[in-house]
């Protein structure tokens, strides 16, 4: 099957070696992410508990749940902003115990933020170049003394940044101040910046928040395009059910810090526990 023809509707989810399901095509390769019995406690409160998730190499997965269910906490655990108090996280097969955010990023995990965190005073291009920080490097002294390494590095960064911006047709905005962009463009720029770090797993925290239906449709197409073009896995938190049901292959539903359901879009839609979590319990009688 050619890469571009992949459709969620044709994805067959199969049981993975450990708890979880991944698309059939990813069975042959090592999963990007494996979280086992992951949990964190904040002073006795279990924000996330017994979280098990496995994500295939080219899977688009969704993490949904009512407000306060612990979705962003899961992202913070996976990116090591918080250190889990229980369980393990394997990134590309490597245990991330004791690592910090920077090391996790170098292992191949990149993210966007729910409340946009761009470098607002800097240009769009500089934001992407900061994402390329560990990809195209040269030292401090080459920079100060303007050695050949500086010119070579800067040119390479410029070309790569423009390449990446072209995913969202944002090359024309390269010289603009990032903070002055419209909301939707800022969200897209955050995705570009995360992609610049060359991740194997991209975490998107509510990428469609604040977008109109037209922009959301475009975003859906772009997320699939990014997955196909970069051959990476994507895990997204989203409240827009059209987006989640439209592009996510595996969906994981979280409530009160615990996974209440896992499965494909159609399975989740019919799951009575999920319906109850979202809509409440029907009164008997």
């Amino acid at each position, binding site marked *: 099957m050619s890469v571009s023809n992949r459709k969620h509707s044709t994805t067959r989810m199969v049981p993975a070696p450990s708890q979880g399901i991944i698309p059939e095509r990813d069975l042959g390769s090592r999963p990007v992410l494996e979280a086992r019995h992951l949990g964190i406690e904040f002073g006795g409160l279990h924000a996330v508990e017994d979280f098990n998730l496995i994500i295939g190499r080219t899977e688009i997965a969704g993490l949904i749940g009512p407000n306060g269910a612990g979705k962003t906490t899961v992202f913070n655990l996976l990116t090591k902003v918080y250190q889990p108090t229980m369980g393990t996280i394997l990134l590309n097969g490597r245990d991330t115990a004791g690592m910090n955010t920077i090391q996790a990023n170098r292992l191949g995990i990149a993210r966007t933020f729910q409340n946009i965190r761009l470098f607002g005073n*800097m240009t769009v291009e500089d934001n992407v170049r*900061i994402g390329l*920080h*560990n990809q195209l490097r040269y030292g401090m002294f080459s920079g100060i*003394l303007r050695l050949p390494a500086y010119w070579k590095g800067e040119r390479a960064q410029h070309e790569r940044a423009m390449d990446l911006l072209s995913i969202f047709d944002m090359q024309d905005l390269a*010289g603009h101040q990032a903070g002055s962009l419209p909301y939707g463009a800022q969200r897209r720029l955050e995705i570009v*910046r995360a992609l610049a770090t060359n991740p194997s797993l991209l975490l998107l925290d509510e990428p469609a928040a604040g977008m109109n239906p037209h922009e959301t449709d475009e975003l859906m197409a772009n997320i699939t395009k990014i997955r196909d073009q970069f051959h990476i896995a994507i895990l997204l938190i989203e409240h827009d059910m059209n987006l989640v049901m439209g592009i996510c292959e595996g969906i994981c539903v979280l409530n009160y810090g615990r996974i209440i359901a896992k499965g494909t879009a159609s399975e989740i839609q019919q799951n009575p526990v999920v319906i109850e979590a979202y809509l409440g319990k029907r009164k008997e009688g």
Partner: protein
Amino acid sequence: MKKIKRFLSGNAATYAMVVIAFLLCQLALSGLIPGFKMSRSFRGQLVPICTWIVMAVSLNLTVGISGELSLGHAGFMSVGAFSGIIMSAWLLSAFEMENETVRLILAMLAGGAVAGIAGVIIGIPVLRLRGDYLAIVTLAFGEIIRNVLNCLYFSVDGSALHVSFNNPNLPGNVIYKGPTGAVGNKTISTFTMGFCLVIFTLIVVLNLVNSRSGRAIMAIRDSRIAAESVGINVTKYKMMAFVTSAVLAGMAGALYGLNLSTVTAAKFKFDTSILVLVFVVLGGIGSIRGSIIAATLLTVLPEVLREFGDYRMLIYAIVLIVVMLFTNSPSIRQFFGRILPHRTRKGGDAQ
């Protein structure tokens, strides 16, 4: 017109400004400008102006570019000043090095190196702190340096350098005597060397800001969490900015110390750190060119106001307040925004 605007907003204009000011001063010094004679007191201010420019630009690297409020910048300056003085005296005694320019350059390098080491030592614990706490600890550092220097004695005996703590009885020629400071220095700083140091500082700071490392430093200032999420080593780049700033302050200190025949540690009090911070804030946090202009004007101003006698510092303070109000007025900013091209700020407000 567009070309002029682009030039005015670029770094080239900053260099041009400094070079033109230097050439004008040189012309005035050699009496080539008819009808204008530089007064003695103003001539004495030329090296201090260079010193304060370097101090302001280097502090701007910490406060404006890296976004850390440091109140101990004079501490690095004093470390640099006394290392420079001792280096110069030692070179003279040990190698009978008569060439003053070479001695000054080596003294400045020594001052920068020692201040840089001090920067590393202070930076390791201090850069874990944020905001107000960092300001308090750097302030304490400045005071500790001053008090330690009050107890140290240095002497050169041939090619040997002697150090003692609280004991003035040292063999050879004592060059630094605790509370009395360094007395009887050979003053070897020149305006030309001061100008060279300013240009050196500008090259280091402006090139650093417009490079991969500089972008990382500014990224941490704008959003530490986002910077970490793209794999930027926060401690490393904060340290880089802090130590570079300390090295430049140390070099400025050596230039300053070797311009005076008597220097005491009391010269580098808390007031001095605040004075440099005033230059930075007045010139615009993050604006290198602003720091240069503010440092120059505020160094010259007390001399110009000398004719007001007792009211000198009162008028100085009033001028400061008026300028602060003036530069912060939205309508004035709008005016400058219209004549200068729209440009994304390289430096922004410290968070």
